[in-house]
């Protein structure tokens, strides 16, 4: 093995993976191109747009700002793991559909991961709190209004069902 390559083990969406990566490989590239979990999107590669957000041990992180080697031993959830099964959507996904909270859909996976974690932390947020939590994810299509509506609606659904 070349000196700058490393063996890593990660769990993504409940599945264990082993990989051999160059030290400099971004986590986003590892997820997308090595594990072929291409639902995580890359928008800026400098940590501003939030499109590449995934959950690392339940906490949202930008996968373009992490190296794959730093992921060793950790557990991840990506957009592919959010829906409970092939038929049903997660309440935040369903609310985004109901409220027309997505247009081109490119920023959507990052927004869903960020908002899912946010609602765990704050199950009954105000509109201002949703906007604050959403402000690290850029969307160029929607003007955010329907995303905010969707998140508030999803929070209500999740509170009533739990």
């Amino acid at each position, binding site marked *: 093995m070349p000196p700058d390559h490393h063996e890593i083990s990660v769990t993504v969406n409940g599945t264990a993976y082993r990989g051999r990566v*160059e030290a*400099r*490989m971004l986590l986003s590239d590892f997820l*997308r*191109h090595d594990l*072929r*979990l*291409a*639902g*995580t*999107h*890359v*928008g*800026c*590669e*400098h940590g*501003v*747009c939030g*499109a590449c957000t995934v959950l690392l041990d339940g906490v949202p992180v930008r996968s373009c700002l992490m190296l794959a080697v730093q992921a060793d031993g950790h557990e991840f959830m*990506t*957009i*592919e793991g*959010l*829906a409970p099964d092939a038929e049903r*959507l997660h309440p935040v*996904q369903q609310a*985004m*559909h*109901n409220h*027309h909270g*997505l*247009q*081109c*859909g*490119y*920023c*959507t*996976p990052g927004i*869903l991961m960020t908002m899912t974690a946010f609602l765990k932390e704050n199950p009954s947020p105000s*509109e201002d709190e*949703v*906007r*604050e939590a*959403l*402000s*690290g*994810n*850029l*969307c*160029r*299509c*929607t*003007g*955010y*209004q*329907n*995303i*905010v509506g969707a998140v508030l609606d999803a929070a209500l659904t999740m509170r009533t069902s739990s």
Partner: protein
Amino acid sequence: MTTRYFGAPVRRNEDKRLLTGQALFIDDIELPGMLYAAFLRSQVAHARIRHIDVSRALQREGVVAVYTAADLGAYWQAGPLLVPAPPIPGLVFNARTQVPLAKDKVRHAGEPLAVVIAESRYIAEDALEDILVELEALSVIVDLEAALKTAAAPVHDDLGSNVASHARQIKGDYRSAVAKAALVLKRRFHYEHGISSPIETRGVVAQWDARGRQMTIWDTTQAPVFVRNGLAAILGLGERQVRVIAPFVGGGFGPKIMMFYPEEVTLPWIAMRLNRPIKWIEDRFEHFFATTHERGQIHDAEIALDDEGRILGVKDVFLHDTGAYNPYGLTVPLNSQCTLLGPYVIPAYDSTFTAVFTNLPIVTPYRGAGRQHGVFVIERLLDLAAHELKIDPIEIRRRNLIPPDAFPYKNEIIYQDFQPLEYDSGNYAPVLDKALAAIGYDAFVGHEQPRLRAEGRCVGIGVACYVEGTGIGPYEGAKVQVQTNGKVSVATGVGTQGQGHFTSFAQIVADELGVDVRDIDIVTGDTDQFYWGAGTFASRGAVVAGNAVSAASQAVRRKALKLAAEAFECSEADLVVADGKVSITGIPEKFIRLGELAQRANPMRGAVIPGTEPGLESTQYFGPAKGATANGVHAAIIEVDPETFELKILKYVVVHDCGTVINPLILEGQIHGGVAQGIGNAFFEKLTFDEQGQLQNASLADYLLPTALDVPRMELDHTVTPSPLNPLGTKGAGEAGAIPVGAVFAEAIEDALGLKDKKIELNEIPLSPSRLFELIGGGRT
């Protein structure tokens, strides 16, 4: 009876794939043996190329090839002129289109000099560092006025000046308007528009099948058919040998329709030479240079009015920055020139523009496409004139609105579709009334504002009217086909970047064929699925492709009725099409499913009757004679912190008329997104270049896009004045949200800070807090 889908807020068919991470975007394409491209881009804005040495790059392990302009041989040629010169008398138009890789000279920072092909993207980017480039720096043209001075170095040596084009368009007699005027008001306006910054950057994947002699190109383009035709021609292939696929595209907003970008033209050629698939994905830093911008104009405009505030005439002379090349012709400045006329009766208009070559990245349309600039000028002129004439700013607009009985309204000058500008239909006063009611204009001006002022708060109101030319030709087509499983497929030539085509087109078909909207599969942006078309731009998808889809589904319905009438041996008039089947009126148990009719339309035995075609399908086209003109009014109440000049939008209202609405949910989304981009434009988005043509804010940490904290909750309403130019009565809506925001901001901020009384005018955009601080002089006003 089946639910009527047309006009209903149907939730989108495409959402599930996008919400679950299953939609195919360009960087998701993985092919066996794939290679990766990285482009070496010029770090300076203007220079002669002395020498490029790629030998060290070629020695790097994992590098497969490196190409410069010299390696392209006869393939190296300037790109096509996308929009030719319009038929304007006396027009000067110097077309200089971009090249695949710079040869002899670089004309803007970021222009590509060489391309590295390697086994990984990481290696390709490493190898860029190995290339040695020797350049001889030339003086750099950034400033529009300096560019036109005789001593200025020409961006294109052979031209001898930096005039890209010069056009004067006249309606009526402005000089006699001035002679009659009670007030002539003249001002200079600067309007900057920025970069569209879709969250997905551009990308190209090219795959050559040497045995099949087939080229497949995945491209984040808004115009796949044009790209197919153009690439086939320059690659020396037949059009049937080239398939261009625009997969799901993560936002476009205009710049993704430009062609050919150097990456689009070089990758397929290299894929043929190396016989391996190649991928290039633009990074965000590259995007700031390699994807086209929209930028600035300087207007010297004057307005002549009578003492009651009626417009007698407008004169405008403006400079337009077209960047280093002008492949998109005059679309942007023509839009500015035409849209300035707005919803108003302007009997005399004398408008001249000069488009200027600069050593900056290329300017092509970005959502609004120059319309913002024109709207800002006329709306500001009206505000300032109202103040001079002591007329209420709403009243001056109302007095000048084109009356409803004046349509079609002829504005005479040539528009971007090369037709004399003519507004097809409209009823403008009710739109203004609705907007004023929604913003609570009278209550705000009468009580709210005085009360807030008494509390020391700086709160102001702005209202702006606009028109939007939409739905231009040439044409689009659609093929609607009932499949034997009863589901319907619809293919069109337009690409999709989030506009909801998978749903709005399906709604049109669903009603016509009595099929559930979810059983209609829309294919967009694949030239093997639909051969003809133009693309998604100029707010034209729903209008032009929508009407083609409508015509094709009507033809399929007629076929279905004919086949069913033959089967039942009854008259077509006795048949009902609903719930995926054709049944006899009053005898619902007597039916044939559409899928079965599709099977019957493709018989295994017997002869197809001459004059008929197999299959339950139809391909139809629609080409409007001219564009349909939408209109609207935006109004905002804005609070300004008088010390920091931080802005807070307290209320934002849009009332809009885009004719018949196919899907109000999708329409609302288009308006929301447009306003958000308009807010970015009005408030803080500015591409800041230094005098060497270097972009100072080429990252999303420096070039700020509006976040959820910057975009307020918007209140929307609309009126419906159908367009007589197409059977559905639709007008486009894609750009409406973005167009008048700058004018609204300037007026609301002036009002909030009482600037008119202090003789301070806000005649430029963007108005960032720091720029406001400079203009207003700092400190508490």
